[in-house]
Structures are given as structure tokens and as C-alpha cells.
């Protein structure tokens, strides 16, 4: 299991992670979501033992990761760079990692390599960005570590290759309970691969839940309310609705139609609005991307504000 306990990570005066607590159960495919500079890559680098936290603990299977060879043996980290080890051929790069990771599997490597048809004796600096990414992913999987950390994992891959790589990851997760932590801006892919996710913003975790519950916990409501007894239109404000306990991420009114993004199960929301006897009431589940945008909007990270 991965645990971050009250972890603080600073880069000089900049706080990248602000006393973060996070738990990732073994065998989970965990997605790290967040705005740029939210702290996703910092978490991955802390988990791979590259960074040392200023405060708090970063634990894998109950042990601190930093400078811990036994724990690092269980973790493989793929960062978002593609230029490293450019002087190697794929074979040399495989041998390089094979010498460090005791469980390295030649069979797995060969099987995956053949599946994506990567040349074994060609210099990696002659590879395209996508091929470099595939190369390091298959090596990462062949290392047979218990934890695989991927930073912008699918960056540079063409759509077909994305499917193949995702399948490789899913197979590994199913075959050997591989714990995968993936950071990505591509929420659809996180949605497809991960079962749990955390949303980060400005070094803090906004939520960390399984994705099903995330997508079922925020809904978009379109409603039209009837006039009062005197025939006047009923005026609902955001504050009015919030006062009565509704957690609203977004509120908009166009003439008599209300567009509300609110947190809560569909049944709960229906029950909330039922006493107001809406003339029109439609409740629509949100995609992960929409939830991401609306959650961050509440925190002032709104694309409309960016001129």
C-alpha cells in the first residue's frame, strides 16, 4: 500500500505539496488528476524515491521510500521525458534495467516488444517520441515491479498504440495485481484505465475516491420552476440553494431555466428539488472532465478567467 502522511514538499520557497494525506491500496489503478503545477509529478517523484519530503512520510508497504533500496526495487517510474538514454539501443536499455531489477522478465519483454514491433538493435535516439515511450513502458512492465508509476503515460502515443499500451497495463494489473499510479491531463484515459483517482490543486488534494463514486456524485441539473401563487416567477439564487444544504459547484440561469452543477447522488438531488415541484427537471451525470473543470472552477481555476 502507498501512503502519504502529512507530506510537505517545497522547492525553495514554492510549496509543491502542502501537507498531503493520501492512501492508495495495493492492486489499484490510481489516477492523479490536477491542474498544471498541482503536484502530480511531485507525488510520483516522492513515491519513486527521487524526492525527499521536507515533512511527513512517504511510505510504500509501511516503509519509507527515500534511499530505501528494497522498496525502490518494488517501484518503476516512467517520467514524462523521452530523451534519457538516447545513446542506448533498446537491447542495451533493457540490459541496463535488467541489471537493477531482480524480477526482470526477458519473456515478458520479448512478448511485449513483439506485440508493438519495436526494433531491438536500433539506437533509441532514432526512435520517435511515441516509440521511446513504448520502449520504456515495456521495460517498466518487464521489470515486474509491484508498483508502476507513470507520468503523462500516454503522451506521444498514437490512438492505436494508446489502446495497446492501455491493454498491456490492464493485463499486468489483472495478471499480477500491479499497482499503477498514473498522472495525466487526459481525463478520459484515466477514466478508462483507473478505478480510483485523486484531484489535486495547488499542492492539496481536493478529493480521493473511486471513479464510479466521483462520477455519480456530481450532477448537472436543468430545471424550470413554476410561478408562485400570485403568478410571479420564483427567484432562486445560488446562496439560497446553498443555505438549504446543497453543495453547488456551478450555478447559471438563463431566463426561467436553471443550470446547476451540484454534488450529490441523483436520488438525493431529486428528493431535494421535489418539494419545489419543478415544471421541468432533468438530471444528467457528468464526465470526469466536466467534474475536473467544475471542481477547479470553485477554487478559482476557471478558463473563462484566463484572458
Amino acid at each position, binding site marked *: 500500500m502507498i501512503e502519504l502522511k502529512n507530506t510537505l514538499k517545497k522547492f525553495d520557497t514554492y510549496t509543491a505539496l502542502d501537507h498531503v494525506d493520501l492512501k492508495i491500496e495495493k492492486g489499484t489503478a490510481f489516477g492523479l488528476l490536477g491542474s498544471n503545477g498541482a503536484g502530480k509529478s511531485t507525488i510520483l517523484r516522492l513515491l519513486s524515491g*527521487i524526492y525527499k519530503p521536507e515533512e511527513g512520510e512517504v511510505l510504500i508497504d509501511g516503509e519509507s521510500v527515500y534511499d530505501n533500496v528494497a522498496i525502490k526495487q518494488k*517501484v518503476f517510474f516512467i*517520467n514524462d521525458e523521452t530523451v534519457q538514454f538516447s545513446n542506448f539501443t533498446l537491447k542495451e536499455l533493457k540490459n541496463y534495467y*535488467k541489471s537493477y531489477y531482480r524480477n526482470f522478465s526477458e519473456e*515478458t519483454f520479448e512478448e511485449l516488444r513483439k506485440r508493438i514491433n519495436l526494433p531491438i538493435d536500433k539506437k533509441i535516439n532514432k526512435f520517435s517520441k511515441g516509440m521511446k515511450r513504448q520502449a520504456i513502458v515495456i521495460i517498466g512492465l518487464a521489470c515486474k515491479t509491484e508498483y508502476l508509476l507513470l507520468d503523462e503515460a500516454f503522451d506521444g502515443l498514437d490512438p492505436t498504440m494508446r489502446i495497446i499500451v492501455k491493454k498491456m497495463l490492464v493485463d499486468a494489473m489483472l495478471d499480477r495485481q500491479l499497482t499503477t499510479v498514473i498522472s495525466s491531463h487526459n481525463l478520459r484515459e484515466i477514466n478508462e484505465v483507473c478505478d480510483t483517482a485523486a484531484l489535486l490543486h495547488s499542492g492539496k488534494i481536493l478529493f480521493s475516491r473511486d471513479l464510479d463514486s466521483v462520477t455519480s456524485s456530481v450532477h448537472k441539473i436543468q430545471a424550470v420552476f413554476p410561478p408562485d401563487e400570485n403568478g410571479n416567477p420564483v427567484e432562486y439564487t445560488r446562496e439560497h440553494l446553498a443555505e438549504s444544504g446543497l453543495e453547488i459547484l456551478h450555478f447559471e440561469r438563463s431566463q426561467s431555466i436553471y443550470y446547476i452543477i451540484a454534488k450529490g447522488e441523483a436520488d438525493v438531488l431529486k428528493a431535494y428539488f421535489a418539494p419545489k415541484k419543478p415544471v421541468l427537471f432533468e438530471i444528467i451525470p457528468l464526465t470526469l472532465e466536466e467534474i475536473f473543470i467544475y471542481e477547479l472552477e470553485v477554487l478559482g481555476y476557471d478558463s473563462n478567467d484566463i484572458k
Partner: protein
Amino acid sequence: MTATTSSKKTSFFGKRYKNDFRQNKRTFIIHIIMELLGLPLIAVVGLIAAYIDELDVPYENVAQIYSGCSAFLVVGIICIIISLFLGMTIALNHFNYLYKKSITDMNYALPLSGTQRFFADYLSGFTMYLVPAIVGILLAIAILGIGTPIVGEKNMAEFWENFHLVLRYISIVLVAMILFYTLSVLAITFCGNTFEAIFSIIAFNVLIPATVACVWVALCESYPYGIDPGGIVYKNIFTSTSPVGAASFFVMYAFNLRNGETQSFASFLFAKWIIITLIVSAIYLAAAYLLYRHRKAEDVSKPYVYKTAFYGIMTMAVFCILSLFFTLDGFLAAGIVLCGIGWFIMEVITRRGFKKFWQAGIGFAAAVISVVILCNVFTATKGFGMAKNVPSAASVESVTISYFDSSELVIRDRKVIEETVKLHKELVDRHFNQENYSYNTVNNLRYYNLEDSDISIDYSTYTGSTITRDYRLPSGMLGELTKAILLSDEYAKETYNEMFTYQYNIVNKVYGDIEKNISIEFYDKTGEYQGKPADKAILDAIRLAYYNDLSAMTEDDLLNAKFYGTLDGAFVLETFENTIAVLEELGFQVGDVSVEDLTTISYEKYPVFHSDAKAIFEADYSEVNDYYYYSDADEKTIVDSITSVRYVYHDEGRYVTSNETSIELLNRSTKIVLGEKPIAAIIANGECYYLLDRGDNKELLEQLEG
């Protein structure tokens, strides 16, 4: 499908080490090529040159061949220089993840501890740098070994005779390489960017020795009495802390040995230098390791991970420049402006702009103020009283004395060390407490026959430090020290080693052991020399006899025994029974001179000896010529004693026809005067001997004219 896993259990350190090697194999191959083209090529050229000497080749052809050889020699030297500088490249390659952001993650994420990673990288680079050099050296030796029978043993005899010295040169170079590589690694650990990493390596290598040298010169100039600025080449803080210093030690060592000074101070310091330089390298390594462990992965891409390094480099540069300008009146401001320009340019580069640039101004001001204060402290404290520093005899392991015409002699004899320290203390006291001393000065005396001597005293202490001093002094002060030296075992051994050097060279290099074409010469008191042919066995026999006699010589012998003459420059006393026996067996006449041997003789009764003593101890300048320049040529000091050992010049004297008395006085006179005043100078055939106040010498002297 069942996956097989590699379960081999080898250390991660070893894996990292091997992988580092694989990653840098190109540099390794280049280094191997350079090393194979370096010393081995020079060895081949050396063999060809030796072979050409042996052949009867016309001069024009020899010149042509030598010219071709020279070209290869230059290629070999260039390759060696390149291979030496590869130490910097190898260090940069092995620690590239400290200043290249793109590869930092992959190195830090590997299942290795920081310690494993650091030492594997260090040792991998170390091997890559040192092993090709050692291979090159071994190959060159093998080439010379194989080539020697081909070109003729005799042509290579000198090389193989001095092979132990060659091994010492090689040791110095290898240790200097370790120092260079380790210092480069240390410089890299301070930096997080390629430019700064390269700049820091160069800056460390240049500025460490430059700063040490500038501090030393500033200290020397603060109060230069007796201080030898050139003594820095013996200071470990200069020679052991940087490759430039190591190179200066190499040059000094090679220069001394080339001059045949196998017993030189540098030669004596060799082992200590090796040990201290390795210790310094270990300290650099420890510092690099601590800095490496302390720095964070995220520090990469910062110009300087430790800003102290940048300000350290810049302050050293400012010190070097300002300390030079400090001595030039009116130029300090120009120096500050020059430093300021350099400082601000470097600040702009390392800050990548003008962010918080006011801090650069504060930094520069602080550096300038520190340097000016330091220079003033040097002056105010007269170089921290360095000129007064005399080590305690107990702390001195050896002393190297050079005076009169003698070559350097390294002595560990406690008595000699005590006498040296005693003399040194008196010299310092005479200079710093001049009010306690008075001199019997006279004007308008001859100034060209001064009884003064220069002396170089180089101490090596048990802690490994060195203290070097140069003085000029009245020779009479050297009496006790000279006595102690002449009675020491080391003097006897050194004399044994040096005796007949010229003749041995002829035996070894030209004629071999067969012919007796060499000659040994004995100068008796008539001033004439007697020569006899000899071979190596005879040389060995005389040398051993002389060594036995010198070792057995007592103080009484030295002071009172009759002086019979000189053998290869070494004195022969009447107590040297073994030597005299061998010489007489060979047909030499050793002993007293008789009236028949000399027709005339000259003498000077109660000669007056004078010195520049007062001017010497009042002068601030250590350089010999400066004493003459600053002394009052007309004012001389009458001295009560002199010290003289070998060559004595005396141009005065009253000539008389030889008679029993004058010959007896000549037989009683000597060239060895140890801190006393002779009662007469006796000159025979231009050779001057002194008559000392012994027994009835005075009475006999008075009879001379009667």
C-alpha cells in the same frame, strides 16, 4: 506463459559500476587510444634514438631520423596531455545527472542508495581514468624491456639504472591524476548546470593553487626576512591541493634529480607528498560525498546548488587579483574596478539575468572588503610573525642544509637538527632584537674578501609541513653546525655515495670494468696533485675505506688531527688510517710535507677577518644581492671567528723560503676551521691553509721570522 526472472544476486554497486562503464565506453576507448599513443610511442622513439646512436650513420641521415622521431615525440606528448585532461571529461560524464535535468529522474529512481550510486560512479570514472594510464605505462616499460637487447644494453643502461626514479615520476603523475579527477568530481557536486560544472572544474583547478600562491606571496612580502618565496613549491598546501601544485612538485622533483641531487629536499619529500596528496584527495572525496548526499534531486538545473561555491570561487579570484594590485601603490582602485567587471559578468551569467542584482553588489563589496582587510592584517602582523617562526628541534624530522659550495644534504641526525635550530634562533634574534647585539665595525676595509656565507635551511617536520629559509650570515656562526654535520653518519654516507661519481660514470658508460683508463687524484699540502690509474674495484676499496674512517672520526680528530690533503674533494686527516693505507698501497705519498717538497711558502700572521654582519642583520631583504645593495659598502664588521671547510682563498701573505719551521707550520695547518679565529694563514702553491691556536703553534709562528 511463465515468466523467468533473473534471480542472480550481485551487489547493486557492482551493477551500477558496470553500467557506468558501458555508458561511457566511448570516452574509455578514446582514453585507451590516447594512452597507447602516449608513453608507448615515446618509448619506441627513445629506443630508435638509442639505436641510431649505436649505428655508424652519417650525420645528415641522423638529423633526418631525429627530426622524424621528434614529430612522433610531439604526437606522444600531445596524446599524454589529452589523456590527462580527460579526467575532467570522465568526471563530467559519470556525474552528468547532477547537471542534466533530463536524466536525473532515471538515475535517482533506480533501486540504489545514494551512497551506492556515488561510489559506483566515482570508482567507475576512477578506473576509466587510471587503468588506461597504467596500461600505457606498463606497455611502455614492456617495449623498453623488449627493445633493450635489440638496441644494446649499454645504450639503455642509464635508463635502467634510473628506473627507480622513473617509477617515482610515474607515481607522482598517477597521484596527481587521482587528485585531478577527485577535485573535478567535487567541483561538479556544487553545480546543477553544465556551464557551471565545467566552469567550476576549471576555476577550482586554477584558483586553488593561485590563491595559495597569492596568500603565500602576500605573507612573504609582509615581512620577508629569511623567507624564501620559492619555498611554496615545498608546501603541501600548494603542491598537494591541486593538480597545478602537483605539476610544480613534479617539475621541481624532476629538475633536482636531473641535476643529480638524489638527496635533495624534494627527493626526501617524495613519500610524504604521495601520502599527503592521497589524504587531500580522500578529503576532497569525502567532501564531494557529503555534498552529494546533502543535495536534492530537484537541485539540478540550478546554476549552483551550493551558492557558497560560487562566492568562494569569485572571492578567490578577487583575492588573487587584488593581492597583486595591493602591492602596487595607487593601483588598488584599478584592481577593484577590474574585479568588479568580472564579478558582475559572472553574476549575470549565474543568475541568468538581473534578478535581485543588488545582492551581487553586496557580495562584491563583502569580497573586496574581506580581501583588503586580510591584506592589511598580513601587513600589520608582519605575515603573522612568520619570519620569527623557528620550529622546535623536537618537531623536526629532517633538515636540509645547503651552504658554502655544498649540494643539498638531507639530515635526520638529532645533533645536526639541534644545531640548526640553535643557529636559526640566533639569526632571528639578531635580526629582531638588534639592540642586544653590537658589532665591531670599521670603515674602508677591503670588501671583496668577506667571510660571509649563504645558507638555505629547509625543515621537514613530523606533521609533514615544511619550513624553508634563506639567510646570509658571518661564516663563524656556522662552526657548531658544520661540526655536527661532519660528524654525522648521514654525511659519511652521502660522501660515500658522492665520492668518485665522475669516475664511476666513466666506468659504467664508456669503458666498462676492464680498462684502467680512469684516474684518481689526491691533492697534498704542496698544492700539487698525485694521480693514479684505477678501476672499479679500486674505487670501491678507497670509497669503503674512506667511509669507515669518516664514520669512526671523533670530534677530537676533526678539531686536532693533521690535515693531509683532499681526495676527490674530501679531506683526508692523519687519523684516516684505512684510506691512507689503501692510497699508499697504490703509490700515493700521504703525510707530512718536507722542506724538499716546497721551495717557497707565504704566510699571514693574525689575519683580520671581516663581514657584512651589521648590514646583514639590519636588512629586511632575504635575497642575497639585496644585502649587498642595501649594505654600506664602506662599513664592515671585524669578526672573531670563521668557518671554512674546503676551498679557501687568501690573497695576502709574506713569502719566505721554505725552512723547517715554515714547513712544520704548513703541516700543522688545516682547511677545516669550525667557528674559531686562525692565528695564521699559510699559503702553499696558491692553496691556503689556516693555522689554529693549538699547542705551541703560537710560539712556533713567532719563530718563523726570527
